[in-house]
């Protein structure tokens, strides 16, 4: 603070420059004040956001307490509200999106960082990063007209007959499928998060010092072995960070999910079943929630979502920071 004072003081002793330096000081202070105001406004907005979420969910928090998170029933008529079906749906769709998106994204990132010549790598990365800019409603549009019919037929049937007959995990591929389902939502989300994973993972992979790779190769490992066993583990915190970022995006995604998940307040073990998510139920029911308890229960759902994404984002930043410092980049 107050860095302007050095200039003013050293500008000279006579009256003319003192008023000049006085004016300079004023200018700096004004600038400081204005920029501080902007920053303070941003802080204020964020604080207000949290306050509004907390304040406008007071009724259900008082009435249900922490039980809200584990109650299955969502019955506006009876005044019974529980977050479980939505939390379940949010978690399941996110998990599916990660299960598909992370291998896909990491694989592409490895290719772009390790194998592709720089010009191809740069242009392909550019194209992939464009995917991140596609509005979510367009993903939803394609979800309705491409993914959902595809899941309904032939994907669901195929999954039921192949993975569905396995012990243990078979149970998640059973049952009637109408197309709209956890799986459909997970697929659409996977495509949405892949650019984040590719973009960040590629950068952290590129940041791994070449001597690590060369050392592995010198010891006789194959290209893949040096990549998978040396480079990737080195970059792992950064990759994990990108996964957390992707997770945060998937958790909060509204439009793409509500258009393909089925909007059914139920908990099913099968991925082929329809379900709901926190963001989707808020979008569907917020404008019509009659009665304060109902509306505030929806706000409380928003609060829950906010807290979860907040924690995940924090973890992501830490992870990426950790890798950056290890990798030796600025």
């Amino acid at each position, binding site marked *: 603070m107050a860095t302007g004072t050095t200039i003013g003081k050293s500008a000279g002793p006579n009256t003319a420059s003192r008023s000049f330096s006085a004016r300079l000081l004023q200018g700096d202070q004004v600038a400081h004040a204005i920029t501080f105001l902007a920053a303070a406004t941003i802080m204020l907005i964020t604080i207000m956001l949290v306050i509004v979420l907390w304040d406008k969910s007071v009724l259900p928090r008082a009435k249900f307490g922490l039980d809200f998170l584990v109650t299955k029933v969502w019955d506006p008529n009876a005044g019974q509200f529980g977050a479980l079906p939505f939390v379940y749906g949010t978690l399941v769709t996110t998990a599916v999106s990660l299960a598909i998106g992370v291998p896909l994204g990491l694989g592409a990132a490895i290719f772009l960082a390790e194998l592709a010549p720089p010009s191809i790598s740069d242009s392909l990365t550019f194209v992939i990063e464009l995917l991140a800019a596609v509005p979510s409603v367009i993903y939803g549009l394609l979800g309705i007209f491409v993914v959902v019919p595809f899941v309904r037929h032939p994907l669901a049937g195929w999954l039921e007959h192949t993975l569905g007959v396995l012990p243990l995990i078979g149970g998640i591929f059973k049952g009637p499928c109408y197309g709209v389902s956890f799986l459909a939502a997970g697929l659409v989300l996977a495509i949405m998060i892949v650019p984040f994973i590719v973009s960040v993972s590629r950068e952290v992979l590129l940041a791994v010092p070449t001597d690590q790779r060369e050392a592995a190769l010198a010891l006789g490992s194959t290209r*893949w072995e040096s990549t998978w066993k040396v480079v990737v583990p080195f970059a792992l915190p950064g990759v994990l960070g990108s996964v957390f970022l992707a997770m945060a995006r998937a958790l909060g995604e509204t439009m793409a999910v509500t258009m393909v998940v089925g909007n059914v307040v139920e908990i099913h073990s099968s991925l082929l079943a329809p379900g709901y998510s926190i963001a989707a139920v808020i979008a569907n029911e917020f404008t019509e929630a009659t009665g304060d308890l109902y509306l505030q229960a929806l706000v409380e759902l928003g609060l829950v979502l906010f807290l979860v994404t907040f924690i995940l984002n924090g973890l992501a930043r830490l992870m990426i920071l950790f890798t950056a410092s290890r990798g030796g980049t600025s």
Partner: protein
Amino acid sequence: MSGWAGTPHMRMRKGISFFFLGSTALCALVVVGVLFFILGYLVWNGGSSVNLNFFTKLPTPVGETGGGMANAIVGSMKLLFLASLIGIPLGVVGGIYMAEFSGKLSAFILQYTADLLNGVPSIVIGIFAYSIIVLRMKHFSAYAGGFALGIMMIPVTLRSTEQFLRDVPLSMREASMALGASKWKTIVSVVVPAAYRGILTAILLSMARVAGETAPLLFTALNNRFWSHGFNEPIASLPVVVYTYAISPYDDWHRQAWAAGLVLLGMVLLTNIIARGILSRGISAPR
């Protein structure tokens, strides 16, 4: 060495290496393929509906054909304009504060806050804007929608401005001050212009991002079948109209949804490409 390299074990390891590395190439291909698929699908389904009617007409009553999205296109522009009024000044000036004036603690707090805002699901921002604007004003409006979108622009413009300002070399600042310029004059005439490309890129990218947002508009700007006058009325926007038309049963509306999706995607992608173009040219310029 050659004998060792030719053993079956080594061949298997090499085979595995080839397989996995090949799969990574496949992954990259799939991901890139998806983007082209999306573009192609939109062009195929929406291309024919992007006609003059689409750009000039208002929506027709339900079930009648021949309507257009003129009000949604202008509506999106107006919302973007309002969002920029909030997102750009706050983000850029706040970024200047972070990079030039703040101490370590306040910089950290602001970074954290920006991250927080960035991570807030867009639907939750919609709840916030509804509570403090729509309920207070007692009506849905473009102001509320613009406010919600503006909040979403802040984190990107803030962090990017700060980053690009910090990247401006100390030598430039010191040179300016040595010539007698005050701190604020240095910032305005030297530092910001030097970081201008990066800041502009960030602005364009954040505008492109909020242009496609739907969820925060659902209960702030609502929608409008007519032209919205000024900013105090509910207003139509491309993403909301795409959503409404997509989930409807009318084939004509589906066609229009594809067309709108194509236009929206086209604008967003174009903005992104331009923004990155600006940035990459700036990086090669001498620093």
